């Protein structure tokens, strides 16, 4: 059970959250997106070994979405950041 640092509520158990896949996947302008750009947005997600910037929503808490760095090997959490704010540096 992960202990997830909600930037609004503080650390909480994983069961209060839903995962929202990778962060910083930008919604392309649908009308002008090529098939390739669009399918990349819909289907293609990174699956890195190590640090991964991802989205979570605190569904059973403040209901707010946020981004956070998580290490997919150690499950360690790095810095969190709110949507539309600058992404903090990838942790070492």
């Amino acid at each position, binding site marked *: 059970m992960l*202990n997830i640092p909600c930037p609004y509520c503080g650390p909480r158990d994983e069961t209060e959250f839903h995962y929202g896949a990778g962060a910083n996947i930008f919604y392309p302008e649908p*009308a002008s997106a090529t098939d390739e750009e*669009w399918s990349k*947005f*819909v289907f293609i997600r990174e699956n890195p070994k190590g640090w991964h910037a991802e*989205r979570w*929503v605190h569904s059973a808490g403040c209901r707010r979405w946020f981004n956070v760095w998580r290490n997919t*090997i150690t*499950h360690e959490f790095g810095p969190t950041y709110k949507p539309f704010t600058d992404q903090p540096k990838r942790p070492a």
Partner: protein
Amino acid sequence: MSNVTFKFDGVDYVGQAGDSLATALLRNGVLHFTDSTYRDRPRGIMSLWVDEPNALVNVDSGAGEPMVPATTVEITEGLVARSLAGIGDLPDTRDISRYDRAYRHADVLVVGAGLAGLTEAKKYADKGKTVIIMDDQPEVGGHAKQCGEVIPPELLASLALENVTHLQRTTVIGTYDQGYAVAVERRTDHVSSKVSTDVARIRTWHVRAKHTVLATGAFQRPLVFANNDRPGIMLSHTAATYVERGVSKFKTAVVVTVDNQGYTDAIRLHKSGVRVLAIIDIRKKLSKASSKSARKPAEKLGIRILKGATALDTNGNLEGILSSVVVTDPKSGLNETISTDLLAISGGWTPTVHLATYIGIKPTWSNKRAAFIVRSKVKSISTVGMLAGDFVGLEPAVYFGPELDETQALVAFVDHQRDATLRDLRRAVGAGMVSIEHVKRYTAIGTAHDQGKTSGTLTMGLIGNLVGLAPDEIGSLTFRPPYIAVPFAALAGRERGLHTEPIRTTSIHPWHVAAGAPMEDVGQWKRPWFFPKPGEDLHAAVLRECRAARNGVAVMDASTLGKIDIQGKDAGEFLDQIYTNMFSTLKVGMSRYGLMCGVDGMVFDDGVTTRLGENHWLMTTTTGGAAKVMDWLEEWLQTEWPHLEVFCTSVTEQIATVAIVGPKSRDLLAMLSPGLDVSKEGFAFMENKYADVAGIPARIARISFSGELAYEINVSAWYGLELWNKVMELGAPLDVTPYGTESLHVLRAEKGFVIVGQETDGTQTPDDLGMDWIVSKKKDFIGKRSFSRSDTSRPDRHQLVGLLPDTSEYVIPEGAYFSEEQHKGAKPPIPHIGYVTSSYFSGELNRSFAMALVHNGRARIGERVAIGTETAVITEPIFVDKENVRRDG
């Protein structure tokens, strides 16, 4: 010590309070404990604790427990247990014991209260940290205590500090990310053999600790030689401990050892009055230190020592109990058979690495220690004691057993519970397997109750011998929680019966229950399935209910539909993005049906949304989809369009909805709300009006999910039951008929209305459902771009069609796959072309009908399909009132 009487295999025994069942039985002279599962070989107690592979029992007293090692059962007055040959059985009575759960945060969790764990606990406790120390045994002190060492009093004193929580009989069964651990604390079984209803029998602990110390110790390992499984053969530490506890069955002993532990235990046996006939030491030469600390003291006691020799085989009496051991040394040509009661094996130590491997820390092989040890590199986890390789003065040889011929290998047991032998390992290797993961699955080694606690390292060592690799080159030991078998009841805690899951009911629910309606579970909701009159079954009730809806007036509780209140100046623009059709142009007071898609263009949810005011909307969702839709809306608002001023609030529970349905619903509404203009012109389809209904303030919407003239009356949930009662009372002259979810389904299917989740499974576009009409060509919306992808736009996708079986009584099972007619009655495999999504018997049509998704379905209308030996014709997916005339009454 007070005496305790207990029953085992139908015989009464007397033991001493504090004895384990294993100790008490051995004290009573029980050596032959059970017979093995597959080979029927006599077996006895081999070990001290949860690593015991042979002595499994069924506890029949108290709450009962189907399969536990006798070594872990503490005897109590009146305990009833019986031996098992590998297969346990659950009690057939309901367990009325209490189980509960505790959650705790701590600075430090220490697992294991042996010397190493206690030392760590004191270290952190002295710094003022909050410490939880958990140990699975009845007594604090671990191995040291068992060996009669004095535990330093200052270590024990620290357990009493205010910042320390100390729990014995508490097994950590799982370790997880970020310092999370789950443990089970056995609280009553050692006190009484009776069922405990006022004190929790087992408490499950959920601990989150900033730092975890694993001090889980080690289990002694057996050796693999021929006939190594007889009663009378034990691990040496086990044997010495039992003898010290007063087991007097053994007069003579032979110890076979790979390390200095064998000497320690031989001396312990000797001091307890057992004549140690020989110590067979695999090692020819010892270090100076070992000679001095181990060999010399044994020689001084006059114990014969056979250097460089090994146990090869054993003999038994008629019952199969150990009578002698065959000792060899191929180099010196020694081959001697020594008669003995007890053969004590010291095959080295296997650290308990389980909890470390659960969190992904890999054990490493240490040749010096002949063991897999764990040195944590993770900052928040430390390992200490034997687990970390603290093997002071043991100096083991890396040795797992002697060379054996095929006949001997057949009775040289590696995993006693699975009756798996050295010969099985040879066959696995012969079949090309080397990796422990493959061998495990081929031989079933490590898959029994003890989960490889005794056999894991042995297996890796023996395979290594066979293929010429070191044990760690065979793979790595992978264990998974739970560390021991745990009753489901302990994990469930108090979430049993009615408390298993939250139950959601509408404000009208008590009426449905009183009416005797069977309930259908829709998510967590209880919805009435149908309302049987005396003597009616489902079929008869549904025919009657549908007849009322089509010809008279019927009433349904629609309160479970998800409802989301949406406000803000940009709500219309937002809904245009969420729904495939246009909402921003909707007039205030009007409702519109809408379809939502995911970004992949697949139908995701549907429902009617009403514009209550210029900037105020009420969305309805499917009953099961409400939470999912709410999350979806928030996701887009927060992460894509934060500039939109839109606020969403769930109001599902706040509003009760009563749908009145059928040609006479207008008459009923007029009776319920006398001042209201209910005329066709005055109250248009999809229009909403505010009025008092039976004296209750209501919003009435003229919408229909059956195709009939219908109204949905929405009131505050507080008035739901009152409204329903009034509808039933005033509607009685019109024979108003309540109906449930089954009739709801039949009515909507007759009209060709889809249910998201029944006609769809997340792979249907609106066009697949024949709902292209609801997809706006003018504006963008979520998922639209995906419609022009090549796979979504191809013309031959699975499309929604109707099916009319040729046998008009035949209701095709939902989910049934079917093929082209030419395959009627053919033997599989048959290429299928589609599957049934909804299927009912229709009173209106006086025949069965179905909806189905069919490959290139719309082009196949008119063709026949075969469902086994039955046939049906493909039709359009609409069966009643294609012209939409009935909705106006």
